């Protein structure tokens, strides 16, 4: 299968999986493992059942937030990989690939920050707090933005590509730190939840909804990267042909 067909397949699969993940998250996946206590701290009788906890629907954001966050880490890894390849080979193709991967990283990082902030407002009652995961992830977002600021500020193409590659490799060091920080720093009262890789983290239907959404989101990441690559390639080819026609 050629890359063009694979992109359309990935688009279909991504749309299907994220749609099914969305429906599963709201209609099937139980929120019972992530409840919060009532504001008064007292229980109540509802529909004949004693309720001591409010059902925390804010955690439904999790099924979008975490897949997008994982996609951001993964695409950032590829951006750093292409940057390394560029520094090894000095082939401009890798610089273009790294730049496009950083664009996709920016999209997913921004979506992660938006969904995470909504959850923070819901669960902790504040729009922002200097909690370790939030802080390190904010640094990651700023580094990704900084990458494009750096590219825009260097005029010489060769220097721009080298500086950008070095910057993205160093910036990527923040990704594993941000990913692992919740497991390294002791949990406080406002600690970012850890649900993956811990006992009792996700029930069967929650895991199914999460995995579908995650693979769907990764497919979207691939699609965006491929489409942007084709766009850049077409632009470069058109410019080259136009220049040749004018000569």
């Amino acid at each position, binding site marked *: 299968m050629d890359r063009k067909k694979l992109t359309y397949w990935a688009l279909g699969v991504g749309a299907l999986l994220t749609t099914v993940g969305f429906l599963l998250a709201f209609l099937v996946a139980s929120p019972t493992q992530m409840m919060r206590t009532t504001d008064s701290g007292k229980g109540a009788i*509802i529909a004949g059942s004693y309720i001591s906890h409010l059902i925390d629907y804010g955690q439904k954001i999790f099924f979008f937030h975490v897949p997008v966050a994982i996609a951001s880490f993964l695409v950032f890894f590829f951006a750093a990989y292409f940057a390394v390849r560029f520094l090894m080979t000095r082939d401009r193709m890798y610089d273009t690939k790294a730049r496009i991967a950083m664009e996709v990283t920016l999209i997913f990082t921004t979506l992660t920050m938006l*969904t995470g902030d909504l959850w923070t407002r819901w669960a902790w009652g504040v729009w922002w707090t200097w909690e370790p995961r939030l802080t390190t992830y904010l640094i990651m977002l700023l580094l990704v933005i900084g990458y494009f600021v750096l590219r825009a500020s260097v005029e010489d193409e060769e220097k721009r590509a080298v500086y950008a590659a070095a910057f993205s490799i160093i910036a990527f060091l923040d990704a594993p730190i941000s990913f692992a920080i919740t497991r390294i720093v002791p949990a406080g009262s406002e600690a970012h939840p850890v649900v993956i890789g811990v006992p009792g983290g996700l029930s069967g239907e929650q895991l199914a909804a999460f995995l579908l959404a995650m693979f769907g989101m990764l497919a979207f990441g691939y699609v965006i990267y491929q*489409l942007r690559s*084709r766009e850049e390639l077409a632009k470069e080819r058109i410019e080259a*042909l136009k220049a040749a026609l004018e000569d």
Partner: protein
Amino acid sequence: MDAVTTEIFSQVAPALPYVIGVYAVLWIGLMVYVGLTLSRVGKLEKQLALVEEAFAKRG
């Protein structure tokens, strides 16, 4: 979810529509972005085919 659980959810989750709304808006936003990129790529590749044709004719 059984009827009792559904009833409980309806009682204790008044902000649920907003959560679904935000989730849907972000998800649809991503789909729209992909759609717009796809449309741009399509136009560019058509333009590229025309320029290549002109280049081939010129020989």
